[in-house]
Structures are given as C-alpha cells and as structure tokens.
C-alpha cells in the first residue's frame, strides 16, 4: 500500500484528504475528515476511472489536468474544476500567489508527470495571454498549456519528446510591464 495526501481547496478553505492504493492499483482506502472507506478502482479502456465503494455505490468519470493546475472532473452529468494538489505543489502554488499578486516571472510547471509533445514558442519570443506555450501529454490527454498573461519567453527547460517530472519547471515567462 502507498499513501497519497492531497489538499483540496473548496469554498470552505483548504481541506486534507488521503488515499492509500495497493500495488495492483485496484484497491484503495479513501480517508477524509477522520472517516475511511475502502473502494476498488478500475481504469477503463478510454481513460475514465470507475470507483466502487464498499456500500455498492459506483462513480465513474474522467480526470484531466487543466493548464492552471486544477483538475477537470467530467462525469456523464457534470464537468467541474477541482483545486486538488499534493501538499508540496499546493504550497508552491499558493506561496507564489501570496508573495506577489502579479509576479514578474511566470513559471510554467508540469502539474503531473508527463511527456512534452510540442513546444510552440522560442526563447525570446513574445507571447500573448492565452497563447499556446507547449503541449504536455499526461493522463492519456494532450494538455495545451497556455500563457496566463502576456510576456516574453525567458527560459525553456524541457525538450519536445522528453518526459518531465511532476512539479518540474518547463518554461519561464517574463511578464510584460503593466501599461498604465
């Protein structure tokens, strides 16, 4: 069994939850607010996950990593953005925010281990907010990573076709000067 702890930032502030997974990746124990519940996991052929809880409840959906680092959870009847991260990445994300409302540099990190499929920018290139920076394949999905604000590409630390660790800095953007 291996234990993972996550921080979920919902409307009520950050909350810790954990999940223990056995080596087969098929059995787990979910713990939240002092209560634990065993469950079985099935990864479906198209990438969705099905969770079967001890009381028979079945939950099925698809999870993708969004460029902001949030997770997109899509079930048949909903599509929701969930702020869930492991404690380290949660600290990185929220420390950066609290230090400066508008930092001079934007570090684009891989929020999950994955593989860089394409780098759409060059060093020194000017990119606008929302422009494609790179494509990261993670969790069976191609995630288009876009610049959240305009800026100039200061560093590219990855190569197309190479794997990246979760949390690794991939690209550094230097923010535009505020015009006013």
């Amino acid at each position, binding site marked *: 069994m291996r234990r993972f702890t996550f921080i979920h930032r919902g409307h009520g502030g950050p909350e810790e939850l954990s999940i223990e997974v056995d080596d087969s990746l098929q059995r787990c124990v979910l713990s939240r607010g002092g209560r634990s519940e065993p469950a*079985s996991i*099935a990864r*479906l*052929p*198209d990438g*969705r996950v*099905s969770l*079967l809880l001890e*009381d*028979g*409840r*079945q939950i*099925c959906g698809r999870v993708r990593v969004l460029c902001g680092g949030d997770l997109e959870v899509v079930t*048949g009847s909903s599509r929701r953005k969930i702020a869930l991260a492991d404690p380290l990445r949660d600290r990185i994300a929220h420390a950066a925010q609290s230090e400066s409302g508008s930092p001079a540099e934007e570090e684009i990190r891989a929020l999950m281990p994955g593989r*860089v*499929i*394409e*780098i*759409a*920018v*060059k060093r020194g*290139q000017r990119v606008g907010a929302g422009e*494609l920076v790179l*494509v990261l394949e993670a969790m069976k999905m*191609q995630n288009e990573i876009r610049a959240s604000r305009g800026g100039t590409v200061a560093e*590219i630390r990855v190569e*197309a*076709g190479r794997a990246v660790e979760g949390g690794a800095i991939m690209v550094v953007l230097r923010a535009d000067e505020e015009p006013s």
Partner: protein
Amino acid sequence: MRLLVANRGEIAVRIFRACRDLGIETVAVFSDADRQSPHVTMADHAVRLGPAPSRESYLSIPALLDAARRTGARLVHPGYGFLAENAGFARACAEAGLVFVGPSPEAIEAMGSKTGSRRMMEKAGVPVVPGTVEPARSAAELKEFARRAGYPILLKASAGGGGKGMRQVDSEKDLDAAFTRVCAEAQAAFGDPSVYAEKRIERPRHIEVQVVGHPREGVLAVGERECSIQRRHQKVLEECPSPAIDDALRGRLCDAAVAAARAVGYTSCGTVEFLVAPDHSFYFLEMNTRLQVEHPVTEEVWGVDLAAAMIRIALNEPLPADLSRLRPRGHAIECRIYAEDASRGFAPSPGRIASLRLPEGPGIRNDVGVEAGSVVPIDYDPMLGKLIAHGADRAAALKRLARALSDYEISGVDTTLPLFRALCADEEFVRGNFDVQWLDRRLSGGLLGAEAPRASEIWLAATAMAQAEAPLAPASAGGSASLWRGAARREALRD
C-alpha cells in the same frame, strides 16, 4: 427506489435507461469479466457476483439475492437469457421480498413446457401445429401420427428450444433411426429424453405478437414483428411490421396472442410466437415470458416504451398512455450485431474491441452494451448490441439502415455487420420475399462472397504504413502555421 438488473450487456443498459426515465436508481451486478463494462460504469450501484462463468455469476440465485439485499434494491429485472424464464428465480425473488419484473412464476412455468403450453393453447382456441402433444413412447406412435398429418414431420425434444434437439423426417423408412437419435440427443443436451412430433409447415414465416398484460387493465396486443430472417433457427434481423401481413391477418394473429396470454393470466410484457404459412394459416409456436431482444422495433413503430411499461406493471402502476389508442407509424428494422466471424461459420470472435464508431442521426437508435476498448469475453453470448433503423415506410427504413451500416466501424473483433450490409443489397430481402429457411439458403448460395480489397482500401493501408515508417518530423519549436497543422503533426508523432 432501486432496481437490480440480473443481467449484463445491452439489455442491462436498456433497462437502466428505462429506470432513469422513471426516476428509479440502478443496481448493476457483474462477474470478474465485466468490471469495466458499460452496464457497470453507468449504474448508481454495482455488486460483484463472482468469477466469469455464468453458473458462478449471472446464474447464481444466492449471489443475486445477496446483491439485492446489500444494495437495498426493491425490484429485480431478469432481462433476457440467463434467469429470465426461470420460475424458481421469480419465486425466490418474491420469497426474499423483492418485486420480480415479469409475469407470475405460474405463467412462466405454464409456458415453459412445450407440451403443457400446447394443450393449454388448444383449450384456449389458439391454433397449434398438428402434433402428438404428448411425448411419444415409441416410433410406432409417431408413425400413426405421420400417416394422419402427412410427411414431412419434425421430431422435437420436449425440453429443447431455439432449434436444438430438432430433426426433420421426410418418409416413414427414416423414422425409427431418427427417433432413436433425437431421444439420445435430448437426453444428452437437456437431461430429458422426451420427444414429440409435429407436422412440418413448408416455407413458413416466423411472426410474433407483442402483448402487454396488466393486472387491472387486461391484455393488449401491440402489433406483430417479422422474425423470419434466421441463421440456423437463431434470429439475426427483425422488423415491425411484417412485409407479409395484411390488416385482416394481423387482427387474427393479435386476437390469438391475446387469447394465449389471457390463458395464463399474463401480467407483463411478453411475446407470442407463431409460424405463418404462405396460405395465411398460422400456428402457435411458444410464448416468451420476458422482454424480447427485438422489442425496440415495436417501440419505434408504436411509439411505446415497453421496458418502462414492464417496470410500471410490476409496481402495479397504471400504464402511462392508453395503449389501446396507440397506432403504428412507419417501419423499423433491427440488426443483432454479434462478435462472430461469418467467414468461419459465424464462430464467436472474442477479443478486444480496438475501435468503435456508432452511426447517428435521424431514424437511428443504438442499444449497445460495449464501448471502444471493451473485451468481449468468451463466457457469454457474443452479442455486442443492436442497431435499429426507423423510417416512414420499409423502403425508407432500409435506406437508413444501409446508411447506418456504412457509418458503423468496429475493429479488433469480427462482427456480423458484413451480413447486414449484404442483406441490404439483396433484392429478395429488399422485396420482403423470404421465409424462415431463406437466410440459410442464401448463405450457402454465397451471400457473403469474399470480395477483393478495393483500391481505396489498399491506398489507405499503404499510406498508414508509410506514415508510420517515415522519419518523424522534429517537434517544431513554434512557427506552426495554424493550430490545425500543429495538431496534425502531434498526432502523426504519436505512432
């Protein structure tokens, strides 16, 4: 309220959809072969029954009752196959305080015996095929019957069904040997050597009538279905209405079906099967005391939801619309899509479905129990699902069916799709000119001739090979002219 479907595949999916339309929560059961199946991943609750073999899973009454108890299910729907016509299961459900979605155990039992049901039908004035009624004790008894009714006759195992344990006898000299053989086969296959004889009806159609029985509202017929397109006595394609039935004959068939259902106090959806001779005489064959595989063609033409009606009846609720006011509209055709290899005598073709693209659009309904990536297990019936096409008349339905079949992509396993594509191009079939042996004759006549690959298919293969082997273009650092180009390149890189 929760309903457990004691089944798998497309019929479990179909019944779950009806539950969702009725606001009822769903409980799936699964064997180890089905943990990833759509009927499980669409359900609100799911319970493992046991290992893949049916006996240890979908046929295990204790495991099913335990699953219902654990999830608090109040209703149990048997689907078709497995325990659907098992009176013992219906009784066990009732004893466990569960509502069995189907007719009474007595009705199941009464229709379960070929000879018993036959006697009952004769009493109710429903025409039956001339036959010995009672199991024959000797070949001599059969000879006497055959002299009266005339050859050819059919010997049938009393406990048989679906074409198993059946043999045609064309003249008296063959009768002794045939009797001995069918008795032995019946003993081996069904554990019961009883055999009876029937007059063989020449070139009949297999026509069945949908009935709906309600405890207070009585029994109604909802039109007929044409089920003559069979391969070795197994239906492969069904239609509503039949292209061979006129209003007068339809009325007589429906009256007979209602009389048959009334005779057993039938209170659910069910089907009364008939053989119809070219001279429009018809004969009761059997009654299926369950939701039929081919129920969707009736639903499309009559605008009724039979799966939902069946659940409402089980809950003793009134039926949603006045069924007697329903009128048919247009024509519907269903194809049963099996994972079978037509080039090897329709042998099951288990394996992983590598890709699946369903047809969509006007007049097309998909009742399917698998998805891309699903493994078709060797343990169960290899039906993947059903394609139903509906149009303003038979010609329109056939054209929509052909269109849907040319939009249907399954790779990884062999399927019966080529059979249906060939049927849509067959003149006799398109004219509606067939009987129950027609398809077997056409198949041995080369309906599915091996076609040479088309140039377009060879070019696709060559292009894919060349793309896969070409030196990969280096991942561009920007400069891609458009998102479209970038996307195309990324995709090409994946190989």
